[in-house]
């Protein structure tokens, strides 16, 4: 799988955020300030645009530049976290022009690390991480067990969806949602929905 498939993944990312723009706005309007649909569709579009016509073949660099473009375009909470994830993934994959299944595990693990280092949140604190973490574990386990990347990606997307759904019941301790205290438990976390969409886009692109 070469850099072209990576650009294909970034294409699907911007598509899925575009399609789910209003869905994210609605989720964030209940919990936060309602801008998540705008920032995610604008941000992933900027990320894709930054690399779509690039001659760069280094997958790491492509991800890094995509992340940087996203950070510049949408410096909101999730915008910067997604930029941090993409940039960290880029650094980890630097030098690779071809990605093997294990590299995608590395990619998402690095994405996760980039987000958690920046945001200092832990799994279980009702954030984006609660969507991505189960997906990364699933992907890792599936690939280790020799499951086909396509199936592994679908399984990971399914795990992300469950992770997103499981944010109901969690107490928010970060961002605007945290100001609601105990009342936050009854709500779905919009950032975790973004993790679910990322994994869906990945499954589709692979």
């Amino acid at each position, binding site marked *: 799988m070469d850099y072209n498939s990576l650009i294909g993944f970034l294409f699907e990312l911007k598509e899925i955020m575009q399609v789910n723009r209003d869905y994210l706005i609605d989720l964030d309007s209940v919990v936060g300030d309602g801008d998540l649909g705008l920032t995610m569709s604008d941000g992933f579009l900027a990320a894709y645009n930054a690399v779509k016509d690039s001659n760069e073949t280094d997958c790491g660099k492509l991800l890094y530049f995509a992340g940087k473009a996203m*950070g510049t375009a949408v*410096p909101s*909470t999730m915008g910067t976290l997604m930029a941090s994830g993409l940039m960290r993934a880029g650094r980890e994959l630097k030098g690779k022009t071809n990605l093997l299944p294990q590299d995608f595990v590395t990619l998402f693990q690095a994405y996760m690390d980039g987000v958690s280092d920046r945001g200092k949140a832990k799994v279980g604190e009702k954030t984006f991480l609660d969507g991505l973490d189960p997906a990364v574990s699933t992907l890792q386990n599936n690939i280790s067990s020799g499951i086909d990347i396509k199936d592994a990606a679908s399984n990971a997307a399914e795990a992300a969806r469950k992770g997103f759904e499981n944010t109901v019941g969690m107490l928010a301790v970060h961002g605007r949602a945290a100001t609601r205290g105990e009342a936050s438990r009854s709500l779905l976390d919009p950032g975790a929905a973004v993790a679910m969409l990322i994994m869906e886009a990945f499954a589709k692109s692979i």
Partner: protein
Amino acid sequence: MKKIINKPENYVKEMLEGIYIAHPDQLTYVADDVHCLVTANKIPGKVGIMTGGGSGHLPLFLGYVGTGMLDGCAVGDVFQSPSPEQILAITKEIDSGAGVLYIYGNYNGDIFNFDMAAEMADFEEGIRTETVIAGDDVASAAPSKPDEKNKRRGVAGIFFVYKCAGAAAEAMMNLDEVKRIAEKTCANVRTMGVALTPCTVPRVGKPSFQIQEDEMEIGMGIHGETGIRRGKLEPADNIVDEMLEKIVSDIPYVAGDEVAVLVNGLGATTLDEQYIMTRRINSYLADKGIKVYRYYVGEYVTSLDMAGASISLLKLDEELKELLDKPAKTPFFRQ
């Protein structure tokens, strides 16, 4: 939404263009980006101080760029953080070898973007940066325990941090010293607000929340974050007493302590009302034996067109008094 604006999406850009037109001798920008605002009068060898954050709070943040205060400000969209690249561009411009101090309010978006910029400044440019985050709103969280991160929102009290740290940098103190002053100021300042009406973000076009004609919300944040009590609008004296009780009980005060007081209007609340509050603040503090060294009254940190006000108290020692008294000259603040 009743505003004298053109297209809402050009709101911040056009505002900034107006700023540069009105203050050509004081402010300019770098990186070909009006959001990257810097002083027109850089002082060689001085520690650079910059801030940044979302628009909608004028004179915060950019209004405090000038002699004796800040050197630069990254300006975000309304209530949105500026980007790491914008912060980095200003960092590069205002560093003259002595390093750069970031002072901004305790909001995740800003923290993430300043942290990213700080990494870039270090990795890409070899510039040393330090960070002090103001979190002065006593209404927003309980006081942090030792070693715990401060969870409080940064609000109007940051003005004092700019003023004291700016005076320290102007006195050619080094980065560690300026940072120490900024941290000390943060540790000594407490703020509490009250909101009477919502504000309207131009691109959103409708009020940020609903509140009854006879209600107020004590402790609301400057973006409309939920406060600690919503209730019937009370007389000014009662409102002031309730706010001050919370502020004064948050750090230990003993009779004879001195403070600086900032009475801040949020936008639609008149100066008259701010002075009516000042009058009560004075007698409240006198009763407690707390001496007011200096008053600042006016719009220092607004929330667009919100009606409401905040009170900030800075507990003073001799060092802070001296720094507070130093002259400053920015487009929005002169002393």
